């Protein structure tokens, strides 16, 4: 039995049936400075939740009789500040989507190294409620519409979920390119559209339909003149330096990169909305 965590300690609750894996996680997390509480079942975890809120909870989706997804819901309802990392012995896309919908900080496919868990727990703990405030309007396989805060951490979390959703359908190189473009464009919206104001929301839509993967990113900023960047400026570095010196939104390099990697990149006239797409099944 662990001693109860002190108020000042970072506290993680591991909800997992006892065994070698759990012992290894416990050891790694303790070594990383975490106060670790282990619960054998979700119901035991819920009981403990009434007494204290851990900073992070790690929950296995396949737990019996109450599963990790159910626990995620209960934790988010009772202790919204507790970040939840779901682990999955049986990887199912529907569950990835459920985790995203339910506000999970992360989703880890088993088996994984204990060090990976420590990294995920550290990252989850660093997130603020702002970073997590995603409103999902549509969340189904192949069609997602959501609003996210202007937070790089939130963007990384979404990127991770998108990768999980499509790793089985999209070739690794393509997925890597799409992820690069996604983060580039969202970062642009965060930095230049919203000037890091986390309270400003970015509209994000995504679709995988027929053989095309599409992302739409819209910020509420004033937008910028994308023309010269897409029309192949001759000296991008000079243009970037010049724009930055003039206090203008740079991004020429990133956008040129995105335009090169994606099949189509379309802006609206205001310059605060971009839609980009790429064919994902052209190999066959």
């Amino acid at each position, binding site marked *: 039995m662990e001693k109860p965590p002190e108020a000042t300690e970072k506290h993680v609750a591991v909800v997992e049936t006892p065994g070698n894996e759990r012992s290894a996680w416990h050891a790694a997390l303790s070594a990383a400075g975490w106060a670790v509480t282990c619960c054998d079942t979700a119901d035991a975890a819920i009981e403990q939740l009434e007494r204290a809120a851990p900073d992070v909870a790690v929950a296995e989706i396949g737990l019996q009789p109450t599963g990790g997804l159910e626990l995620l819901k209960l934790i988010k309802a009772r202790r919204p500040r507790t970040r939840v990392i779901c682990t999955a012995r049986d990887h199912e896309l529907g569950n990835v989507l459920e985790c995203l919908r339910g506000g999970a900080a992360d989703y880890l496919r088993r088996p994984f190294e204990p060090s990976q868990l420590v990294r995920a727990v550290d990252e989850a703990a660093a997130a603020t409620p702002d970073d997590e405030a995603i409103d999902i*309007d*549509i969340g*189904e*396989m*192949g*069609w997602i*519409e959501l609003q996210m805060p202007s937070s790089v951490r939130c963007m990384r979390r979404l990127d991770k979920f998108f990768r999980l959703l499509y790793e089985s359908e999209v070739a690794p190189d393509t997925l890597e390119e799409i992820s690069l473009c996604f983060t580039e464009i969202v970062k642009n919206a965060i930095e230049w559209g919203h000037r890091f104001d986390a309270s400003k929301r970015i509209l994000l*839509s*995504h*679709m*995988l*339909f*027929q053989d*095309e*993967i*599409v*992302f*739409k990113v819209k910020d509420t900023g004033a937008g910028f003149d*994308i*023309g010269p960047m897409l029309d192949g400026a001759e000296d991008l570095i000079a243009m970037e330096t010049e724009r930055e010196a003039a206090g203008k939104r740079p991004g020429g390099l990133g956008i040129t990169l995105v335009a090169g990697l994606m099949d*189509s990149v*379309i*802006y*609206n*006239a*205001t310059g605060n909305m971009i*839609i980009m*797409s790429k064919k994902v099944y052209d190999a066959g």
Partner: protein
Amino acid sequence: MTRAEQLVRDEPGLARIIESIEQIGSLPTIPAAAQRAMALARDEAASMREIAEVISQDQALAATVLRVVNSAYYGLRQRVGTLPLALTVLGVREITNLVLGVSLLSVFPTSSDSELFSREALWRASAQCAYAAKRLAHSVGLGRLASEAFLGGLVHDIGLIILDEYRHDEFIETLRSARQTGLDPIAAEMDRLGTTHASIGAWLAETWAFPEPLVEAIACHHCPETSSYEPPLAALVYLAELIVTFHNQAGAAEGIAAALDADATWGRLLSLGPPVQQPSSTTAMLEQVCDEIESAPLILGVARSSPR
């Protein structure tokens, strides 16, 4: 007793009209795409991918979606050439509205217009009303009703089309006498036909299995004070029509604001309390509504011009 059954009981003319339509046996059925879109608008268990499939399998509908996305309204710098791109640009709400609008428009094709009635003009005003009702819902804190308000605005006058289609001569006569005597058209309909286009529209909506609040909104769009429904969908449709009428006649938001402030339904709506909230400036709100009104024919008009 359903709403339509009540109406049939109270308005002898309605039963006669229904009977004659049923005798002809040619009442159009609601298109499958509209049915799916409606389920989506009502947030029932419909999958978005399903609606994408419906669109992709209907060439005319797919072409329409592309044409709309590439219209000036969306202000894109490059052409959108594929359906997935177009669907992503529009987003679920606009797609739903568009599919509904286009497929309902296709049910009753435009006929030769009489001097007194033009289907084209009616659809134009209905599209304007749909976008006005949607914007109005957002402006007064009833955003969750926006999709239903859009639908209500789009179909509230569908009874007029039925009259034009199945009782053309009588209908035109009614319009003529209303114009000559200066009688309110609704009163003239009741007078001559023993029913109104609102009741006929409500009956059709019920036949097409539209959701109940929508049936009620169609039935009461000329008398929202008689609607027992909370939330006040009928009031939203009534007010949207009022705004559209003023917009198309005069235009300026100040003038419409004065008309709105003098309107009892507007007063009643605002007095309902949360979530209904008074917009901080009626004129500013109306400017937004008028922007939507102006964009409406652009969206549905582009859609309408599609060859079907």
